[in-house]
């Protein structure tokens, strides 16, 4: 075991898989000598060489197209998109090409590509750096979308994503990069894809969240516990597919559900979670399913982030509303 920040856990996962599989390649803008704009790839080029860890020209479509081509030649590419707000540049390559390759070749061609990309608010980034655009990729058949909320999951999920033979979009939360530390095992271990995680057990209310909002939700659960309210917190971890089995089981246990996301109300995956629970467990519910999400505006100007981003206060208010519903 070692104590690692979220970003150290990511670097460690990359190092582990660069070591374990010589077909893995790490590339993107500034990921080489510079070690990434957030140091996620720090030291990797020095350790594994320029043939395995390298910089690319500044062109996102090119980076993902390069990945598809490399995958066709038997490689396991781990490209980086510097900020996920830049994904629009690469949408055809991700959603029009990479995601379809297995399908359009009758299941005969693997494209084991893991796209890493940071997103998320709270650090006063300039425009198009923090936007939550996960739903855009989560609604594309053929893609898995994963977003860890803590260092342990970050390493284990990233290793699973890299080892998976299909494309995975791996979304890293900027605010979490250095704000938390946790015990992380040395060497290779996997956190399974496609699986949610009950991070806190409870019986009165289920809060379903992902990425940074898991930690906000945990704060609320602890606070409500002091008042005798038992809150279960489910970390989705995987946004495509969503682990319905785990969320439905929790809803059937607590009978009350709140879904939390940082994305705008019209975006994110909260509405999908709500509709699935409605279809599968409506008779178990004692209250309407609630949602906490951001307002339906463009992502805010930096100075307005604190007023705009959904936080523990918003979650607490909505949780109380659902708990008190009769």
């Amino acid at each position: 075991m070692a104590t690692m920040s979220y970003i150290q856990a990511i670097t460690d996962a990359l190092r582990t898989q660069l070591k374990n599989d010589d077909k893995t390649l790490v590339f993107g803008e500034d990921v080489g000598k510079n070690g990434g704009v957030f140091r996620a790839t720090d030291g990797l080029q020095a350790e594994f060489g320029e043939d395995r860890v390298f910089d690319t020209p500044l062109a996102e479509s090119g980076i993902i197209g390069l990945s598809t081509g490399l995958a066709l030649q038997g490689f396991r590419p781990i490209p980086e998109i510097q900020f996920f707000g830049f994904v629009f540049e690469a949408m055809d390559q991700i959603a029009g090409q990479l995601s379809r390759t297995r399908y359009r070749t009758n299941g005969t061609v693997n494209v084991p590509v893991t796209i890493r990309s940071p997103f998320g608010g709270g650090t006063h980034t300039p425009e198009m750096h923090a936007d939550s655009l996960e739903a855009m990729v989560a609604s594309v058949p053929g893609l898995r979308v994963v977003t860890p909320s803590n260092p342990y999951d970050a390493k284990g999920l990233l290793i699973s994503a890299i080892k998976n033979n299909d494309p995975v979009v791996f979304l890293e939360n900027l605010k979490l990069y250095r704000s938390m530390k946790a015990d992380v095992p040395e060497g290779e271990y996997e956190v399974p894809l496609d699986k949610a995680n009950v991070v806190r057990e409870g019986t009165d209310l289920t809060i379903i969240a992902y990425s940074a909002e898991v930690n906000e939700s945990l704060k609320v659960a602890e606070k409500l516990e002091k008042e005798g309210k038992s809150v279960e917190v489910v970390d989705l971890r995987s946004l495509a597919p969503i682990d319905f089995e785990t969320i439905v089981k929790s809803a059937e246990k607590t009978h009350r559900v709140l879904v939390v996301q940082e994305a705008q109300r019209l975006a994110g995956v909260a509405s999908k979670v709500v509709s699935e629970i409605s279809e599968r467990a409506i008779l178990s519910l004692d209250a309407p399913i609630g949602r906490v999400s951001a307002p339906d505006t463009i992502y805010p100007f930096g100075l307005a982030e604190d007023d705009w981003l959904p936080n523990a206060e918003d979650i607490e208010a909505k949780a109380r509303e659902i708990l008190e519903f009769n």
Partner: protein
Amino acid sequence: MSEVKFVDFVAKKNDLQDQAKPLQVVNGKGEIVNQEVFDKYSDEDLVKFMKLMVWERTLHQRSNALTRQGRLGFYAPTEGQEASEMGSQLAFKPSDFMLPAYRDIPQLIQHGLPIWKAFLWSRGHVLGNDYTDENVQALSPQIIIGAQYIETAGVALGIKKNKTEDTVAFTYTGDGGTSQGDFYEGINFAGAFQVPAVFFIQNNGYAISVPRRVQTAAVTLAQKGMAAGIPYVQVDGMDFLAVYETAKAAREYAAAGNGPVLIETLTFRFGPHTNAGDDPKRYRTPEEEQPWFDNDPLIRYRKLLTDKGLWSEDIENAYVDEVKEEIKDAVKKADEAPKQKISEFLENVFEVPTPEIAEQIKAFKAKEAK
């Protein structure tokens, strides 16, 4: 005091008008204009080249007819581009990786794809894209214009990293495609990584109804290679020998580790953009078309070979009959392909189905069993 010009943009613009002269071996009248290159090829070679062009023309004519009969689906006519398509493809080895666009079906077939599978692709059947049995080194035809270019840079980088000897990636786009971002990114990445790739632009004058001059003020499309710092050349795309000789040199250059090449072939599509309702009469005049029809690559090589006593109407007709038979068999084989199942589509989305997909596979299997 005379005015000192720090920079003269008028002069710079005039410099741009420097005309590239497309490479040529046999001109539009069937005359040899480069004897040295011509003499490299034997009589057998010339007959082989002629046959390839006749093969493509026959494939086009049959595909056209089959589309009208409703026995093929999507079809992008190739008539007029035989020298450009066959002359370029022939320069490559079966082990080279091809990334075709939707009009490049003849090259894909010559690269190893059975005709019946090409027909299945046209109809919209997944088996048309399954290249495993024949081990065709290619990706299925690309519909998103430009995507194949950047993917080619990736395949070529993979070839380089794998240290696979004597192997290159090659790809095609049209004149309209050179306006795409992915076109530029593709050649630029390939240049930056110095990978073994050959990029073809088949400039057939039109992108659906939009003439080449609307795409760009650039005098040639080949010169776009300069922006990527890679060698480029414009070639007479109606001249088989010029295309073949150039493509061969490009392949050799790339395979030797020198980096990528961009080749523009000047050609013309005699027919519509696709058989899905496009009518060139809406945007092209007969006056404009006629010189290109006269410039038919088959006419000039037919004359040349006939003069040399290597070709005749009888030889051509007998060969066309042979090809028609081959195509007839392919249609029959395509007709025998099993009906597609949605449950199998679902199984192809991921290697390991997600729980959601697994649920849907179960549901469709039950429906299909009825």
